[in-house]
């Protein structure tokens, strides 16, 4: 007699049923959809949804349904052509909303209500763009030291101490001329890190050194402060990038920090990497300044030097322009920006915060009739080689995009013209999303076209089905009834892998599919080991029931050993691997664990059901003449 305790049978049944339920959402497929949200993250109103329906009805674009879900409007379409048309149309008609393409699972309501979702497809399966950006932390530190430099210079000037303070790399150099009070200076330096001074911790490394100009100090950031500044720079950039991604209108984007100084961005469904990149990597900002009308710009260009108090720039037509040094308002003070048209010209409508508005009010009221200019600043990082080392240098591109005479007094709301329609759109978007605190540069990109994604899904699915059927046929022929039991376990194993992937919502990638395929081949190994053992026991003249028992028992430690070592390999892959490798490690690891359950406990339960209850078993249908 071979019988499982009743609870074990129930456990097997429960796991299989739970697994089937979890895996169920995957068989319904997806609808092409369009996702509509408000840029300010407020919930979309029922009336807006009605508006969407009216627009689609007017243009006779058929849709399956339009509902409000998670504060967003979600419209499903019967095919991709309708989805694309609707997308273009809604973008045009609803300029103040974010419209994105998406895939909506067709999971029935009762499953969705239980919280069951289909597997999450990786970028290589659904198409999209993957970027890895590196944050230029050296510049972040340098910028931070720049604030110290300015603050220290002011303090020293007020104290009447002559100095040549400057930032060099990660160090602030403080040469003091003519023997100023060095102790006083040191106190000022230590006071620079206000947060640290409050907590009575010393987070600056201050060394007294001799410069050509006289004695002075070398100031560096201690590790804790350095790390704090670096973390801050990355967090701020991550936030800005997230804002920009939201502005781009992508459903289910990923923006996350990776490692010390990298930010990963995944944009499923985006098909134009160039546009995404222009927006993500841009460091564009604006400055508003008065035009210097007292001096001649052409003379300055010829001399190659701007008069005191002014700076020389070029406008979009490469003509020289002299601007006053003082900045009235910078891009940081812009609270909202939208693009549109003003008297037929592309324009960006700008809102300023209160401090910016006050400055603008003062300036415009004092300078009526004078020209004001908008300076467009774009910084691009470049990798240059110097002394055999690769360094990132930031190149600043500054252009005067617009000059206009101040016609009247204005403060918080005004418009900027002088751009092409595309530039106006991009600029408005960038101003809304905020500037990047630190330059970033792309170190990895992967773009997968939508057709390749679909091909990958189809080929992966076909490989799984054919591989599975080949193994099933082989096992059935070779091990007869026992082979069928193993096949049952193999199928249950596939269901459980899909169930776990759905539960964990880990992204399924093509290497992940390869992992599943490999698991299908290797999962039967446990059963092969058991069945060969049973055959051996039978050959040795043992009774069928005893052979079954011995076969399972003796094979167990071997199976455990063998699987644990593969699990070790999978774990190492998971911990050290990135992207595609991780996907493979996840399915391989999950597959090993589920296969242990199905092929040992699962098959035993079924074998016991078939043979276990019988008192007289003459032969086992396990193939081989035994």
């Amino acid at each position, binding site marked *: 007699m071979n019988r499982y305790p009743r609870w074990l049978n129930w456990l097997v049944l429960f796991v299989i049923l739970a697994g089937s339920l979890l895996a169920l959402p995957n068989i319904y497929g997806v609808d092409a959809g369009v996702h509509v949200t408000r840029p300010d993250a407020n919930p979309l109103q029922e009336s807006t949804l009605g508006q969407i329906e009216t627009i689609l009805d007017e243009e006779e674009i058929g849709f399956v349904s339009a509902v409000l879900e998670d504060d967003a409007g979600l419209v499903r379409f019967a095919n991709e052509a309708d989805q694309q048309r609707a997308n273009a149309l809604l973008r045009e008609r609803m300029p103040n909303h974010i419209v994105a393409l998406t895939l909506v699972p067709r999971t029935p309501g009762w499953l969705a209500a239980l919280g069951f979702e289909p597997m999450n497809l990786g970028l290589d399966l659904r198409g999209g763009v993957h970027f890895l950006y590196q944050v230029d932390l050296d510049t972040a530190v340098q910028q931070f030291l720049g604030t110290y430099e300015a603050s220290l210079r002011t303090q020293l000037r007020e104290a009447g101490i002559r100095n040549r303070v400057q930032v060099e790399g990660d160090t602030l150099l403080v040469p003091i001329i003519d023997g100023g009070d060095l102790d006083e200076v040191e106190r000022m330096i230590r006071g620079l890190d206000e947060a640290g001074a409050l907590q009575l911790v010393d987070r600056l490394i201050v060394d007294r050194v001799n410069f050509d100009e006289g004695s002075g100090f070398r100031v560096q950031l201690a590790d804790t402060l350095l790390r704090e500044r670096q973390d801050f720079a990355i967090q701020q950039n991550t936030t800005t990038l997230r804002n920009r991604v939201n502005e781009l209108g992508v459903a289910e984007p990923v923006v996350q920090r990776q490692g010390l100084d990298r930010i990963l961005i995944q944009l499923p469904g985006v098909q134009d990497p160039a546009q995404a990149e222009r927006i993500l990597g841009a460091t564009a900002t604006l400055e508003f300044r008065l035009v210097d009308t007292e001096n001649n710009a052409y003379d300055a260009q010829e001399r190659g030097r701007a008069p005191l108090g002014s700076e020389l720039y070029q406008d979009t037509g490469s003509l020289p322009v002299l601007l006053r040094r003082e900045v009235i308002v910078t891009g940081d003070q812009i609270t909202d920006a939208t693009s549109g048209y003003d008297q037929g010209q592309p324009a960006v409508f700008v809102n300023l915060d209160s401090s910016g508005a006050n400055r603008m009010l003062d300036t415009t009221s004092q300078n009526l009739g004078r020209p004001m200019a908008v300076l467009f600043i774009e910084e691009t990082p470049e990798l240059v080689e110097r002394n055999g080392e690769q360094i990132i240098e930031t190149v600043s591109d500054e252009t005067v995009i617009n000059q206009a005479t101040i016609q009247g007094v204005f403060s918080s709301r005004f418009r900027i013209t002088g751009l092409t329609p595309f530039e106006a759109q991009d600029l408005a978007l960038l101003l809304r999303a905020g500037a990047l605190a630190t330059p970033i*540069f792309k170190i990895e990109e992967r*773009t997968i076209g939508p057709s390749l994604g679909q091909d990958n899904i189809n080929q992966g699915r076909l490989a799984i089905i054919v591989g599975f059927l080949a193994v099933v046929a082989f096992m059935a022929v070779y091990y007869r009834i026992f082979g069928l039991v193993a096949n049952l376990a193999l199928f249950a194993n596939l269901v459980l892998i899909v169930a776990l992937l759905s539960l964990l919502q880990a992204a399924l990638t093509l290497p992940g599919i390869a992992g599943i395929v*490999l698991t299908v081949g290797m999962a039967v190994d446990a059963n092969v080991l058991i069945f060969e053992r049973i055959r051996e026991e039978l050959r040795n003249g043992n009774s069928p029931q005893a052979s079954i028992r011995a076969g399972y028992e003796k094979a167990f430690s071997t199976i455990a050993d063998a699987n644990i070592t593969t699990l070790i390999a999978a774990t190492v892959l998971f911990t050290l691997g990135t992207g595609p490798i991780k996907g493979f490690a996840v399915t391989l690891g999950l597959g090993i664990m589920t296969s242990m359950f199905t092929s040992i406990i699962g098959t035993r339960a079924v074998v016991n059901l078939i043979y276990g209850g019988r008192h007289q078993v003459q032969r086992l249908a396990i193939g081989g003449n035994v």
Partner: protein
Amino acid sequence: MPLFNKTPDFNFMGPRRQATGLSVILIVASLAALGFRGLNFGVEFTGGVLLEVGYETAVDLESVRGVLAEEGYENPSVQFFGAATDVLVRLPPVTDAEEGANLGEQAFVALQARDPAVELRRVEFVGPQVGEDLREQGGLAMLFALIMIFAYVMLRFRWKFAAGAIAALVHDVLITLGFFSVTGLTFDLSVLAALLAVIGYSLNDTIVIFDRIRENFRLIRRGSAVNIINTSINQTLARTVITGITTLLVLVALLLLGGNTVYGFSVALIAGVLIGTYSSIYVASSAALALDVSPTDLVPPKREEADEMP
């Protein structure tokens, strides 16, 4: 289907010296290939740009190369990718980060200008520093996996068998690498993953045999080590062959149907499974034999004490 009606009785350990000779030749050849030819690393490792484009009709590689050369791209590698309508372009890394980042899109625009029907299927750009990181990480992963596995096998079998198992793994990895070097197949991230899967598989095989050897050392007290190992390999032969067959079945399905992206992965695993099966019979067992295994080397310490009791 009677493949093995009764336990076979091959003298596996008989020609073990010849097998060792063969393994040594293969390893030396692999090392030589790796030294002289090296591996054809994929973009992930070298940095650079990879572009996959699809044409509507079959295209001439020379014309694609011509377009790229006209646009000033240096040393583009242009090859078909599975079909005469699919072309894979690889551009070497450039030092200027910004320029390198947009190279792929620019190259595509150039190709599109010549033939508007061309479709962008995939762009991969990997900066030089990422490639370097990945190479480091890959090597580290491999080393780390080997150490962990060695520790586990030590724990379960004592050191002589652990050494045998690791010898087999290093053997498999080296020869598979050698195979990739000789054939010039692209060695990318998925191949690296496959290599680690090979480690898992080969070890699986080795452990099944070792487990049986351990069991037989306990059962057959009189046999010589060679005889016991032979018996054990024969007893597990049916399992070794059948698991090999089922695994190869799915891998061939993946190779033929899985598309080009998993081609290298499938090839590496097929090669690895074949080599791994051979190595668990010959390399692992021969190495253990060469280290002069005895029953005490197999049985975990506690049992050993029990055995020594009068």
